[in-house]
Each structure stands twice: as structure tokens, then as C-alpha cells.
């Protein structure tokens, strides 16, 4: 029983770390721009497809594939902000309309990927998968990379947000957009910046997923839904909250395996989210709204 709990906790920590990365990639954009960027899922798909093409067909190395996913994700996110969201803001579109545009972009984009690349599942080859045993717990090399890669990116991002001029400016826009303007920050530029960074991160997160799972045009939806839950669980507007939300979600899903069969994970995620929304509506580390 104890060994099982240790194994489940390890699994929870592994998937929780990736959830945290995905949550932060979306939460950074949402906190700064207040755009409910559903098409984040499309960014993930596009970035991973670019890398799968480069690695699987053009024979690029896997590290180059990761780099390409980050670059393609970044460019795609920035383009979405410039071409879709900014014109909508200019005509004072409501947040509901912006959300609908985002949803529409996701559906159209996935269809386009389906038309161009077909429905068949693809693989991201080239990663040496083997098992690692550490005392009572075991995981694969892919899972080890999830853990190490997610935390490396999370810590880098948090250090940047807390200790650099532009990182601080982004937190300022997230905290109080009008005051940020008063001190001379251009919120439009910061929007581009968070779309670039968040989208590069979701591209990298997608690559970590693609090392284990097969790649299809809808690969982005499930992880980005998980990211929403992590953000709302941890508290909207809080980057450390999104990290905590991801970890709690991963642990709850997996530790639930002590009581329930594994395929109940999705239900557990919802129950955890629902309880937080009822008992702590602003999330675990949420910024109280005034």
C-alpha cells in the first residue's frame, strides 16, 4: 500500500509538473491580457506538427525539433494576438466575443491541420525510452524529462518575471493595466511579449507530451483544458498559483488511484475544481478582486 502510494505520488508529481508548465503558459497570457485564449490549443498543435515534420521527415535532431517548436509556437501566438485579438480590441469587442473568435480559430485551425496532414496519428521519434527505478518508485526516461524540463522552464520564467525590468512590467500590467500605462508601460507591447513567451512554452510542453503520446490534429485540446483547470484551481492572475494548481491537479488525479480505478482521473479533476470554486472561489493563491 505504501509502495503504491509512493508510486502514485511520483506519477502525480510528474504529470503535475507538466500541468504546471501548461497552466503557466496559458495563465501568463490570461493574467496579462484578460483574453480567454482558447486557441492556445491550436498553438500547441501547430508547434508540435512543425517539429514532428522536421524530426520525422527532414531528419532534424530532437533538440533542434524542440527549438523549432518553441520558435513556431512563439510566432504563431504573436501572430494570433496581432491578427485576431488586437483588431477585436480596437473595435471594443466584449470578452465573450473575443472568446468566441478564439474558439472559432481553434476549430478552423484544427480542420486546416487535418486537411493538410491527414487524420493519421504520428510519432515524434528519436528519444531513448527506458525505465528508471529509484527505490520503491519507477518511471521512464520520458517522464524524467517531463519533470526536469517542466521545472527548468518554470523556474526560468519565474526568475525572469520577478527579477527583470520587463518581467516586472508584465506583472504590473497583470496587476493594474491603467496604472501600468501611467508609469509609462505600453500594455500592447507587453501583450505581444506574453503571447510570445506563453506560446513558446506551450510548444515545448506539447513536445514533452508528444514524446509519450501520439500526435494528431486534436493533440492540443486536452492539455490546454487541463491548463485552464490548473489556472482556476491555483487562482487567476497568480503565476505561482498556476504552478500549485497544476501540481495539486496532477497529485489528486493520481492519488485518487488509491481509491478509484485509473480511468476516473477526468472526474477527479472536475471534482477538485468544483470544490475549489465552491469553497475558495478565487483559487488557492488567487488575487482577491476588489
Amino acid at each position, binding site marked *: 500500500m505504501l509502495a503504491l502510494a509512493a508510486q502514485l505520488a511520483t506519477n502525480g508529481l510528474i504529470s503535475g509538473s507538466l500541468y504546471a508548465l501548461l497552466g503557466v503558459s496559458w495563465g501568463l497570457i490570461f493574467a496579462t491580457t484578460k483574453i480567454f485564449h482558447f486557441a492556445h490549443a491550436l498553438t500547441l498543435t501547430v508547434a508540435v506538427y512543425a517539429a514532428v515534420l522536421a524530426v520525422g521527415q527532414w531528419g532534424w535532431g530532437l533538440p533542434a525539433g524542440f527549438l523549432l517548436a518553441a520558435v513556431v509556437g512563439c510566432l504563431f501566438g504573436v501572430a494570433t494576438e496581432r491578427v485576431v485579438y488586437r483588431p477585436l480590441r480596437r473595435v*471594443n469587442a466584449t470578452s465573450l466575443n473575443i472568446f468566441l473568435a478564439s474558439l472559432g480559430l481553434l476549430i478552423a485551425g484544427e480542420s486546416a491541420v487535418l486537411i493538410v496532414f491527414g487524420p493519421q496519428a504520428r510519432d515524434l521519434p528519436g528519444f531513448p525510452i527506458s525505465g528508471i527505478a529509484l527505490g520503491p518508485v519507477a518511471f521512464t526516461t520520458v517522464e524524467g524529462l517531463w519533470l526536469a524540463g517542466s521545472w527548468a522552464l518554470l523556474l526560468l520564467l519565474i526568475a525572469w518575471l520577478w527579477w527583470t*525590468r520587463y518581467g*516586472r*512590467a508584465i*506583472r*504590473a500590467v497583470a*496587476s*493594474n493595466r*491603467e*496604472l*501600468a*500605462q*501611467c*508609469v*509609462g*508601460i*505600453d500594455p500592447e507591447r507587453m501583450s505581444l511579449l506574453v503571447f510570445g513567451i506563453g506560446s513558446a512554452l506551450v510548444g515545448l510542453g506539447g513536445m514533452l507530451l508528444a514524446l509519450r503520446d501520439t500526435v494528431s490534429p486534436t493533440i492540443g485540446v486536452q492539455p490546454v483544458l487541463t491548463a485552464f483547470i490548473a489556472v482556476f484551481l491555483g487562482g487567476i*492572475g497568480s503565476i505561482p498559483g498556476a504552478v500549485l494548481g497544476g501540481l495539486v491537479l496532477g497529485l489528486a488525479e493520481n492519488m485518487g488511484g488509491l481509491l478509484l480505478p485509473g480511468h476516473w482521473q477526468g472526474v477527479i479533476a472536475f471534482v477538485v475544481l468544483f470544490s475549489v470554486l465552491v469553497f475558495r472561489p478565487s483559487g488557492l493563491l488567487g*488575487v482577491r478582486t*476588489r
Partner: protein
Amino acid sequence: MSLLAVEGLATGYAKKQIVFGVDLRVEAGEIVALMGHNGAGKTTSLKAIAGLLPLWSGGIIFDGEPIGQATSAARVRRGLSLVPQERFVFADLTVADNLELGAFSVADPTIAAAQREKVLTLLPVLAERRRQLAGTLSGGEQRMLGLGMALMRRPRLLLLDEPSLGLAPLLVERIMETIRDIARHDNLTVLLVEQNVRHALAIAQRVYIMRTGRLIVEETGAAMAARGEWWDLF
């Protein structure tokens, strides 16, 4: 030449016009008060001058240059700084972060550091609270921080929107004295929105009064103070 000259300023929110052709000027070194009832358009005028709201018509000249179409960030870089009426600190950031952000438009870190020393000497309470989140400060301390943040970027014209709002009378006097001292020592020009006539007249050399989006009175502070009854003006 006036430091700030506003001509025929008209603006509003979305489709609702609030300000209908305001002309005002502020000379270098002056403290000028803009007064009037709630909803007269004082805050809206300040926001338009700072670039937070677009001009519908009219023009704004700052230090001889037209800035009516410039972004708010560009106006801040030229030395025009607004301290808003509400939410004038980043509540979930530390006092130290707030001060750094106050100097965001200052590209040279040595200038920013020197300015930080100056602001912390002037407002020592901020030094004691550096690591605290700004939202946990008292109302008076938050006002001081809001003022300190604006001073971090060495503005030439400070636009202050009701710095006395929500403060106890004793604190209001301290804030007003601080504003006057800063203006005197740093040759800072101030355009102040104020509802409280007595507080405004205590420091302002000149006064404008607004009603329903228009200016109705311009007078020197001394002439205003000499009037017995102010209320018929509002």
C-alpha cells in the same frame, strides 16, 4: 510659454461624451487646481491629458510640442505623469517593486537609483515597508507610495487626481504639504484635481472650476479664497 496648454479638449468613454471643449494652461512651477462636482469631467480631462483616453477634438501642447496623438508611454517619457484617483499602487506587488515600476520610463539605472534614494529620504515610511505588499499599507501610506512612484520618474508636470480622497483630515494636510514642498524644491509643476475647496486653495496659485464638462471659472487662488461663498460656483 506655458508648460501645458490644452485647447478645446473634448473626450469621453466609448460613445458617451463627458468633456466639451476645455481650454486650460499651466505655467512652469505653478500649482493649479481643477475643481468641481462629481461627474463634472475633471478625472476624464486628466486622463485625456495623460493619454489614457483618446482626444475627440482639440489639442494638447506640452513644453511647446503637440502631444495629443502621442501614446501614454511617450507622454510619460516627456515628463508628464498622472497619479490616478483610485488604484494608484500595484496592490499585489511589493513596495520596492512599485517604486522600481515608477521609474520604468527611466532608461538609465544610475538615475533611477539616485531618484530612489531621494524618494526614500523624502518619504521614509516607504523605506521601512520595502518588502511589504503595497496592498497591505494603510490608506495614507498608499497615497505616499503613489506619489513616490510618480516622483521616481522625475516628472516635470504632475497630474494628481484627488490625492486627499478617503484620507483623514490630518493626513490630507500632510499630503498637501508634501506636494507643496516637492513642487517648491524640485521646480515641479502640478495640476491637481480636488473636490475639497479648502485643501486646494491651501496650495494652489490658480484655480479652474468645471461643471458638466465645461470650464466655468478661472481665478487666482487668492481671489478665490477672498470670496466668501464658493458653493454658488459649483
